């Protein structure tokens, strides 16, 4: 690669201002790690931007890090300060704190695992074609499906099996622009008679489920990929087993799979 030409092309200036596509960003990242001269150039561009911005701000700001620190600590302080008057309330407070801590650690760990899982998904994605061709769908249908799942702007989320069915899994391919979610449930067991799977879009803080729809005719859908409309700003997806016709809110005891969207 002609590095001088690459630098002169102007791509690095666009890289620093954040004006490139995700794919181009990745390319620059790789080149940068291969060629120190490119990294030096990127740093110099960044410096120039920083200097100009600092000059605009002129150090007028009086805010300090302690303002921010107090805002990110705020939640913890609230819990600790709860009650002194009644003992049982204090115990409840501590118990809640402890539960929160354990919960947070668990979530942190879970989150890390999910992230690893998501990375693996990218590889798994490549294998998807194989997986799909194993299904009994007609070639045309498969081709159409492939085109959808290969779209550049599609996001792939792996939903992991939960307590009730640890070996289950599902995948969601979410095209935000088209507001469509393709639910691949080849990894779910067939639902028992009278029951149906229902898909939920979740926002996490506070945890709010929104119904995306039920997976009707599970057994006769040969490729086990369902298309649902998703207009939500989903942070996670979950699938529960519900009575026929679906439920208004998810039955969490019957939560089969759950996965967090890579932001």
């Amino acid at each position, binding site marked *: 690669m002609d590095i001088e030409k690459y630098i*002169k*092309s*102007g*791509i690095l*200036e*666009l*890289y*620093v*201002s*954040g*004006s*490139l*596509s*995700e794919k181009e*960003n*990745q390319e620059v*990242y790789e080149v940068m790690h291969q060629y120190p001269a490119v990294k030096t150039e*990127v740093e*110099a*561009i*960044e*410096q*120039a*931007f*920083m*200097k*100009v*911005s*600092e*000059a*605009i*701000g*002129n*150090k*007028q*700001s*009086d*805010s300090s*890090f302690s*303002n*921010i*620190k107090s*805002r*990110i600590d705020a939640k913890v302080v609230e819990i600790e300060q709860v009650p002194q008057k009644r003992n049982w309330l204090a115990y409840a407070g501590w118990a809640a704190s402890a539960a929160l801590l354990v919960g947070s650690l668990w979530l942190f760990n879970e*989150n890390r695992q999910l*992230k690893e899982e998501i990375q693996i998904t990218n590889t798994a994605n490549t294998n998807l074609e194989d997986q799909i061709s194993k299904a009994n769908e007609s070639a045309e249908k498969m081709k159409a499906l492939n085109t959808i799942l290969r779209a550049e702007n599609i996001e792939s989320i792996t939903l992991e099996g939960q307590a009730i069915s640890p070996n289950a899994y599902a995948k969601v391919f979410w095209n935000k622009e088209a507001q469509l979610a393709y639910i691949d449930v080849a990894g779910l067991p067939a639902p028992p008679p009278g029951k149906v799977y229902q898909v939920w879009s979740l926002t996490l803080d506070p945890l709010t489920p929104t119904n995306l729809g039920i997976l009707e005719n599970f057994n006769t859908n040969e490729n086990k990929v369902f298309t649902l409309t998703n207009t939500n700003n989903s942070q996670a997806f979950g699938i529960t087993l519900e009575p026929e016709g679906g439920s208004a809110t998810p039955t969490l005891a019957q939560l089969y799979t759950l996965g967090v969207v890579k*932001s």
Partner: protein
Amino acid sequence: MQLEQLISKFQEKDIKSFERLYEMYSDSMFGVIYAIVRNKEEAEEVLQDVFVKAWKSSSSYSAKKGRFFTWILNIARNSAIDKIRSKSFNQGKQNLDATFFVDILETYDNLDTKIDISGLQKYVNTLRDTCKKLIELLYFKGYTQKEASVALKIPLGTVKTNNRKCISELRKNVLK
């Protein structure tokens, strides 16, 4: 400590590393926000929001997707633009075509303050208007290369090469 290390410790929620990053980037981010909201108190408010957001979503940063500077710049300009949007919405007027950079020197001239802007003058004065416009769109408004090409009615490749020339000029001025 290397920037990479600092960032990874920040992502592990190490508050000291976060404070270091704040020291490194808060002045420049304040400048970006100020250019957009044009009000000191509001800019400080947004600045705090930006760093709180950065802390909360630290895990979403990945070096593969871009520079840390670009990541935080993106949070800053989005938050600042949101701020003026909600303001113009409340006041029932549309000022979304507002300029953030092309007239930055004039703003200070109008503000009868004792603030020393000779530094900014030195950096920006020699820039041609087309350069200021380009920097405004790409850097302050977060346009993509393609969006800038449409907005300025110039070919995609020209955006790239013109911008390179403009930033080179800026870099020369910064080094002077």
